[in-house]
């Protein structure tokens, strides 16, 4: 199950364009089919529960959050790569232990990008975040 911060299609497109700078070099080298991505998280090795993820510092600040099955996204022909990065590789292990994924969306024009992001977004269900406002207190650095 993939989880992402709340987001309208316009916001997701804006973020994809903004974050494309991170991928431009990889695309130029032929290592990635597209610079456009959507950020999602999954627990590493199933060590974090849904509540753990939603109470993590990143997610506790979102009102709604998005949830989708990875298989539903990967069935889309233009979603070709899910690149992974451990969010807090520089940090000691925590009970959350999230991995950051980038769902790569192939698109040639801004119009096509928006249409495809819409199709990706349609596969996410939008939920109220029960952890919003808790501040992720269980994961303060001093605990």
């Amino acid at each position: 199950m993939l989880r992402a911060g709340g987001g309208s299609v316009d916001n997701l497109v804006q973020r994809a364009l903004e974050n494309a700078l991170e991928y431009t070099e990889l695309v130029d080298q032929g290592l990635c089919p597209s610079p456009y991505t959507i950020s999602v998280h999954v627990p590493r090795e199933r060590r974090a529960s849904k509540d753990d993820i939603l109470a993590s510092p990143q997610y506790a600040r979102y009102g709604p959050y998005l949830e989708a099955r990875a298989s539903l996204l990967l069935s889309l022909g233009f979603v070709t790569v899910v690149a992974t990065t451990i969010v807090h590789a520089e940090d000691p292990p925590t009970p959350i232990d999230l991995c950051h994924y980038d769902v790569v969306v192939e698109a040639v024009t801004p119009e096509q990008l928006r249409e495809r992001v819409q199709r990706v977004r349609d596969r996410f269900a939008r939920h109220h975040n029960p952890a919003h406002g808790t501040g992720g207190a269980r994961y303060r650095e001093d605990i």
Partner: protein
Amino acid sequence: MKTFSTDLSRFTTKGYGTLYGAAATQLRPGERIAVTDDEADTLVAEVVRVSDGSAEVRVFWDKVLHRV
């Protein structure tokens, strides 16, 4: 305080992340700014370093300026 809209889900558990664009390159190390995301709280962040086209910042997850 300048406010930046960004992808907070890319920030690390300890709050590190990157802002892109011309406005980000005008920031100065140590400067306090506000960051937010779509349907998310607005938080205080501090500029760590600035380079060509981007600025590395650290957001303080517990310093909320505005709650959604």
